[in-house]
């Protein structure tokens, strides 16, 4: 398993780029990917089911204390905040919503920053509110790699733009460029 861990957050307009990214990753992609998408943003169908149809990797909706495994995509369940408890497992919580959202991206990114430090790759995609910017900044402060989807390529640019304004993003990339970057890290592993 690679030391690097990928965390992807998004809200309105983020399902499409997530599908683009996942469908381009091979079955032997080594980095664990964790996805937090605000629920209620799209349809009633569970996000993990949609994503499973577009990925060669195993897609799992997280249950409490779920352990990290390679070649797996983990999806935050709707209605719960997702914490990275430590290097080995997640935990869930029903704390109050943040930015009207549960799961909130800040919760996952911040705890991921503490658990994985410089091995954390955090990606903030399209969205209509400012959740995620604070968490992304925290990942950056802990030496991690932070990426905002380029506002131009975002269906709704408020979320990535607020991260960019916060100076939280090391890189500003389109979904295609994000795929290339992830594949590079996969080759490192």
């Amino acid at each position, binding site marked *: 398993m690679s030391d690097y861990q990928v965390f992807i957050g998004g809200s309105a307009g983020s399902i499409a780029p997530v599908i683009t990214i996942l469908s381009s990753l091979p079955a032997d992609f080594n980095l664990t990917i964790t996805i937090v998408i605000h629920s209620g943003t799209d349809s009633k169908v569970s996000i993990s089911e949609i994503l499973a149809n577009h990925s060669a990797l195993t897609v799992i909706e997280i249950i*409490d204390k779920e352990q990290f495994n390679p070649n797996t995509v983990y999806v935050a*369940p709707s209605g719960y905040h997702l*914490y990275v*408890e430590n290097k080995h497992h997640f935990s*869930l919580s*029903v704390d109050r919503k943040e930015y009207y959202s549960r799961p909130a991206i800040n919760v996952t990114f911040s*705890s991921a920053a503490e*658990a994985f430090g*410089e091995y954390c790759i955090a990606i903030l995609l399209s969205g209509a509110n400012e959740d995620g910017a604070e968490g992304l900044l925290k990942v950056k402060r802990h*030496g991690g790699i932070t990426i905002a989807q380029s506002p131009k390529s975002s269906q709704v640019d408020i979320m990535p733009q607020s991260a960019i304004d916060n100076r939280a993003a090391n890189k500003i990339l389109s979904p295609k460029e994000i795929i290339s970057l992830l594949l590079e890290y996969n080759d490192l592993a």
Partner: protein
Amino acid sequence: MEEDNITETLRTENLEIDLLITAIKGKIGYDLTGYARASIKRRIQQLVIDENVNCISDLIPKLLYSRQCQSNFINRLTINVSELFRHPISLLRLRESVLPYLESFPRRDIWIAGCATGEEAYSMAILLEEAGLLNNTQIHATDINTEVLKQAKTGILTKGLNKEDAARYQASGGTSSLSKYFSTAYNKQKLSQNLLDHISFSHHNIIQDQVFCSAQLVMCRNVMIYFDLKTQNRALTLFNNSLVQNGYLVIGEKESLVNSPLSSLLTTIDEPAKIYQRKSSEHV
């Protein structure tokens, strides 16, 4: 180097959290050591902001010298969010597979551990009433937080009945109108007294206290997610010990027994519904 600073900050914060936890334990008697750390940490950091102090250790004198802070901290650190008919699919399955079992007993005890503001106990009373089982059933609802217990005892809903409540009630197999179980006064809804009479609310700490009662059904949902794995196992052992042989355990929608040695003592009745049954053998 910045990275060293970060490591140092993390170390200091962890130390501060340990100190605060020690202070809470000493002053109020709540032991938060077995709780999942990441979420405790975030809630403590939010307290730092809300209390307008500089760092986590500044919370300690507040906790020690202000009664108001003590109850505020406990309310913030124990998450008391609940709702009526949460995880309705589970309750639907419970109607189908557990209530008939309960019917075979002349008197029944149900333990709801971590009941928060009471919605789960109210929902259970409604399910039992609809199955004609409420008479001769006692619902024992417990929580660590005395303030939510006070609220729960009144039978008054913290949030007024809404469409989502009604939808979950229906998804759980309810066919009446949910509002018929509540009376409205001063814009607040209160559970009917004849239902409330079958629920007792008591203080109980799952981590530190013994089995609360012997029960045919134990329900503990969205409480163990706050515990670390070791503490979860202790809690599960407690619940298993409180169950009569063939009694049922119901846990939260996103909780799991897979990491627990207890799973060998329980039969899975319905995994998505999170309903398990104690095997008929001796205690652990």
